[in-house]
C-alpha cells in the first residue's frame, strides 16, 4: 500500500512546474524564501555614519526547522519557538500569538536580471519603495533563498549588506528540537501602551507583548522591515549606551548602537524609558521616531516650576 503511494507522489512532484520569479511579486519572493531547505554561511554588516558592525554566521534549515549560529550564540527555531542553550540547559521562547503578515504597498519589485552567484544560477531583483531603490536581492533560482541582500539608505549608500559565502541547497541534515526546556516562556498579547501610536511612518503596530514585570514590547512592521519599541519605567538606560553615538532628529537627541543585524536606539521621556530595535534603514528610523513619544525633560521642569509657583 505504501509502496504504491510514494512513486505517485514523486511523479506528482516532478511534473509540477517550479514557479519562476517572473510570476511572483515581492510578497511571494519573501514567502518563498522561508520555505526551502538549505545550509549556508555568510557575513552580515551594518553601517550608519561612522558606526559599523559586521559578523559571520551559519544557518541550516531543514524541513521547517532552522539552526543559526552567530555572535549571539546558537539557536534552534521551529515554528514559533526559538530555543537557545546555556551550558547544558535549553531555554525556549515561544510566540503564543501573532497577527497575520502583510506587505506594505509602498514596496514593489523593479528590475529582474538573470545572474550567477557562488556559481549558481540566480536572479537579481531590485525592491523599489515608490521611486527609490530600497534593496537589492540576489536570489538562488533553485531554492529561492536570497544569497545576497543589500538594503540602501536614503542617499543610496549601503546600510546593510548580507551575503552567503557558502551555500548548499537541500542539505541532508537531521535536526532535532530539544526535548525539555529549563524555561519555556510564552509571548502573549497584552493591552497596548496608550503612549505608543497605532502606526508610525508606514509601520503598523501589529502586536504588543509583555516585557518583564511592568514593561511592554510594541512590535511594528511594514512587512519588509520591522522594529520593536520596548517601554519601561523612567530612568532606565543599559550600560552599553554609556558610549553610544548621539544623533538628532528635528533637533531632538537620541542615542544609537549599530550591530550587524539591528540598530538599537535609546531615549527617555519624563515618565518612561524607551528602546527601539529593528532592521529598518536610518531614514525609516528617523521617520518612526518622529511618530513615537519624544524625549526630553522640559516637561518635568515646567511641571515642577508650576507646582512651586502656581
Amino acid at each position, binding site marked *: 500500500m505504501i509502496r504504491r503511494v510514494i512513486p505517485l507522489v514523486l511523479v506528482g512532484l516532478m511534473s509540477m512546474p517550479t514557479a519562476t520569479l517572473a510570476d511572483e511579486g515581492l510578497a511571494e519572493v*519573501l*514567502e518563498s524564501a*522561508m520555505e526551502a531547505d538549505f545550509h549556508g554561511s555568510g557575513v552580515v554588516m551594518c553601517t550608519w555614519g561612522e558606526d559599523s558592525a559586521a*559578523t559571520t*554566521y551559519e*544557518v541550516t534549515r531543514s524541513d521547517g526547522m*532552522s539552526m543559526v549560529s*552567530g*555572535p*549571539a550564540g546558537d*539557536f534552534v527555531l521551529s515554528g*514559533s519557538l*526559538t530555543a537557545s542553550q546555556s551550558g547544558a540547559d535549553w531555554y525556549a*521562547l515561544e*510566540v503564543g500569538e*501573532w497577527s*497575520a*503578515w502583510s506587505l506594505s504597498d509602498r514596496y514593489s519589485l523593479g528590475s529582474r536580471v538573470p545572474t550567477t552567484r557562488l556559481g549558481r544560477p540566480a536572479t537579481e531583483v531590485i525592491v523599489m519603495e515608490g521611486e527609490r531603490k530600497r534593496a537589492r536581492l540576489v536570489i538562488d533560482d533553485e531554492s529561492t533563498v536570497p544569497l545576497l541582500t543589500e538594503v540602501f539608505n536614503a542617499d543610496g549608500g549601503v546600510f546593510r549588506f*548580507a551575503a552567503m559565502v557558502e551555500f548548499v541547497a537541500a542539505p541532508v541534515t537531521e535536526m532535532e528540537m530539544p526535548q525539555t526546556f*529549563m*524555561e*519555556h*516562556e510564552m*509571548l*502573549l498579547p497584552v*493591552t497596548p501602551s496608550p503612549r505608543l501610536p497605532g502606526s508610525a511612518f508606514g509601520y503598523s503596530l501589529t*502586536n504588543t*507583548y*509583555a*516585557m518583564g*514585570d*511592568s*514593561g*511592554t*514590547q510594541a512590535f511594528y*512592521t511594514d*512587512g*519588509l*522591515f*520591522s522594529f*520593536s519599541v*520596548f*517601554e*519601561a*519605567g*523612567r*530612568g*532606565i538606560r*543599559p550600560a*552599553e549606551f554609556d558610549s553610544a553615538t548621539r544623533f538628532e532628529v528635528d533637533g531632538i537627541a537620541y542615542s544609537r*548602537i549599530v*550591530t550587524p*543585524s*539591528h540598530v*538599537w536606539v535609546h531615549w527617555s521621556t*519624563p515618565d518612561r524609558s524607551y528602546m527601539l*530595535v*529593528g*532592521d529598518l534603514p536610518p531614514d525609516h528610523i528617523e521617520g518612526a521616531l518622529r511618530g513615537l513619544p519624544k524625549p526630553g525633560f522640559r516637561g518635568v521642569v515646567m511641571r515642577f516650576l508650576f*507646582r512651586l509657583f502656581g
Partner: protein
Amino acid sequence: MTHPNHLLSAFLDDELSSEEHSMVTSHLESCATCSSDLAGLAQVRNWVRALPDQEPPVPLVPSLRRPPRWIWAAASAAAAVLAIGLVVSPAEPAPFDLDTLAGQHTARVVVVPGISSIRGPVGGP
C-alpha cells in the same frame, strides 16, 4: 483564452470575489477541460469532507499532574505613573537587558516573512 485552473478550488469553496466567480462560471460553460478538472477537484474535496468524524477519547480534560516546568511572561497592565514630586524616587530595578530584548524581538520577527527572517537571530547586542 487562458484557463483559470488555479481558481477552481476556491470556486468550489465559494471563496472567490463575485467578479472572479462570474468569470469562472462563464468560462466553465464553454470549456470541457476545466469542467472536467472541476469535477475531479470536487470529487477529491468530497472524499476528504466525507472522512469519518472520529470520536475523541474521554475525558477531554487533560491530567494536570504535569511537572510545572513552564513559566510565562507576566501579563501587564500599564505601569504605574510616578508622580513628579519634590522628592525624586529612585529608578525602578527593571533594567533593559539587551540580550533579553533581542531575544523577544527576534522571536517575533522570524515567525513571518521579512527581509531578516531567513537569517534568524544572528546578531547579538
